[in-house]
């Protein structure tokens, strides 16, 4: 009898302890489920229906919305631009960040000032930077680069933001301008964790500087590359602020991001079901690419070590 009482008290105690612990999850779960989990489920359901802000009936459409996505010129344009931007920025930022990190890792006068300088642009909103570059790259003769081309080099002005090719290139280069320092800092963090003895041993063995970079530095940088490339890929696929600030998605929709099309179709035009199908494709695209990239880089990591 007494034993049973103690037993039930203990169980009760354990239950109340568990409950007390679970209460700590409440705030995060409340916001997370209201604005992430439930919207995710709703997106999925809506994507198979014809629901819109005007029409609240949920007529079931099957995969019609998904099929219509493939015919939508604006969706195609945004996918094309997003692919170009993502590949362009990932390749160029990585190619610029690794040498910058190698230089910033060595000793030279003013090193800390340089580190802080190169990092700073990533602290400022991409939208604001796009807004500023819109002036600097302005297509008329008043633009900063154009006034240099015309007045200093006596060349003709270039429609930096007025021409599809130039505008897309400029959006990529502005990203390289502000993201290189941040990514270099990730590489730098890993460079600083390479033990000095590795280099000393290599030097004793008579390895040249290029050999040291090839056999010690680069393999040690693979984990940094895994993170840096992941943030570049996801950042590129999610891009919205920068092209929106530079040209509002123009010229001729050549810089519309997936997010911008989602807003136009879903909020401006009110086609909820249709926009949700785009949202689901967007979400899957990012998940699949992230998974492929991280598992590929993890394999590479195992190989070089």
């Amino acid at each position, binding site marked *: 009898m007494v034993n049973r009482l103690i037993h039930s008290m203990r169980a009760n105690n354990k239950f109340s*302890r*568990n409950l*007390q*612990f*679970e209460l*700590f*999850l409440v*705030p*995060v*779960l409340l*916001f*997370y489920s*209201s*604005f*992430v989990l439930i*919207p*995710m489920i*709703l*997106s999925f359901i*809506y994507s198979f229906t014809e629901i819109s802000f005007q029409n609240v009936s949920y007529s079931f459409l099957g995969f019609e919305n998904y099929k219509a996505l493939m015919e939508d010129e604006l969706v195609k344009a945004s996918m094309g631009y997003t692919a170009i931007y993502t590949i362009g920025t990932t390749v160029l930022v990585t190619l610029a960040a690794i040498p910058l990190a190698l*230089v910033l890792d060595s*000793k*030279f006068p003013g090193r800390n000032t*340089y*580190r802080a300088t*190169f990092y*700073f642009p990533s*602290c*400022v*909103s*991409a*939208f*604001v*930077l796009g*807004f*500023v*570059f*819109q*002036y600097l790259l302005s297509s008329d003769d*008043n633009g*900063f680069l154009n006034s240099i081309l015309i007045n200093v080099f006596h060349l003709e002005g270039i429609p930096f933001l007025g021409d599809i090719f130039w505008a897309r290139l400029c959006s990529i280069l502005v990203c390289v301008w502000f993201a290189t320092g941040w990514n270099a800092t990730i590489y730098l*963090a890993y460079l600083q964790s390479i033990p000095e003895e590795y280099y000393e041993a290599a030097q004793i063995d008579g390895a040249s500087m290029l050999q040291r970079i090839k056999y010690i530095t680069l393999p040690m940088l693979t984990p*940094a590359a895994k*993170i840096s490339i992941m943030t570049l890929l996801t950042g590129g696929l*999610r891009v*919205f*602020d920068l092209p*929106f*600030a530079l040209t509002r998605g123009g010229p001729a929709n050549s810089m519309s991001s997936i997010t911008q099309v*989602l*807003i136009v179709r*879903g*909020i401006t035009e009110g086609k*909820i079901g249709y926009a*949700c199908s785009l*949202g689901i494709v*967007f*979400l899957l695209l*990012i998940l699949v690419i*992230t998974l492929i990239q991280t598992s590929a880089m993890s394999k590479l990591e195992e190989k070089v070590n």
Partner: protein
Amino acid sequence: MGKRAGMIKTIILFPLALIVIYPFLFIVATSLKEQTEISANPYGLIFTPTLENYVAVFERFSVARSLLNNFEITIFSVAGIVIFAAMAAYPIVFNPNRFNKMISGLIIMGYLIPTQALLIPVYQIMIKTKLINQVPGVIFLYLAGSSLAVFLYVGYMKTLPKDLFESATIDGCGVWGCFWKIIFPLMTPMIATVVIFNVFFVWNDFINPYLFLSSPENATLVLQVLKTRDQFAVEWGLGLSITTVIMLPLLVFYIFTQKYLIKGMTEGAVKG
């Protein structure tokens, strides 16, 4: 030899650093120029400064109100993320059971989900709950994005010695008290990282205020920049003076936290 090689690096990096820094000098300089000076000498850095643009934007665009909104949104969102995410990490680390493991996976999954992909139902929820156009509505959205913070806290909490918690329990510390008296104060280094990242993110965010705070009295500074462009595209001084107002608090914050920022990034990166 070493010294000369060092000097060469300093010299080679200088033009690169100039390219990085010039747009910021351009922003501040233009904001201090008169309209006539901007047309005559748009890119020069030597001129007679004036506060004309600042007076104009504070009068015409209620920038003071927006600045206040920015502070309000940033402070409440960041404080909420710092506290709630640490709370969520506590049962995941110190009371690991099947349910909590599942929850932890679910929350951390949020880091991979692009929130923009869910914009449409979020927009609908904001309208239905009447949170649209309300400052708290946007704060709630930022609080929903605490996945990375939970992940960082879980990683850090796991490094704490387990017997620390057990001895406190024996001394009569309850589940509630133990967190606030012992665990949370020990989180300070991670709190610094979480604060720094989220301050920059929330202060600079464009898409959430753009979609969910359209009325002028609730606008944030970034929205005011957009407004000057749409209304007064030729008057660069207006937009760029608001830009300076956006960057100035960030610059001060950056100078004070730069050391922790890079350290935090390393920790976050190494654990990620």
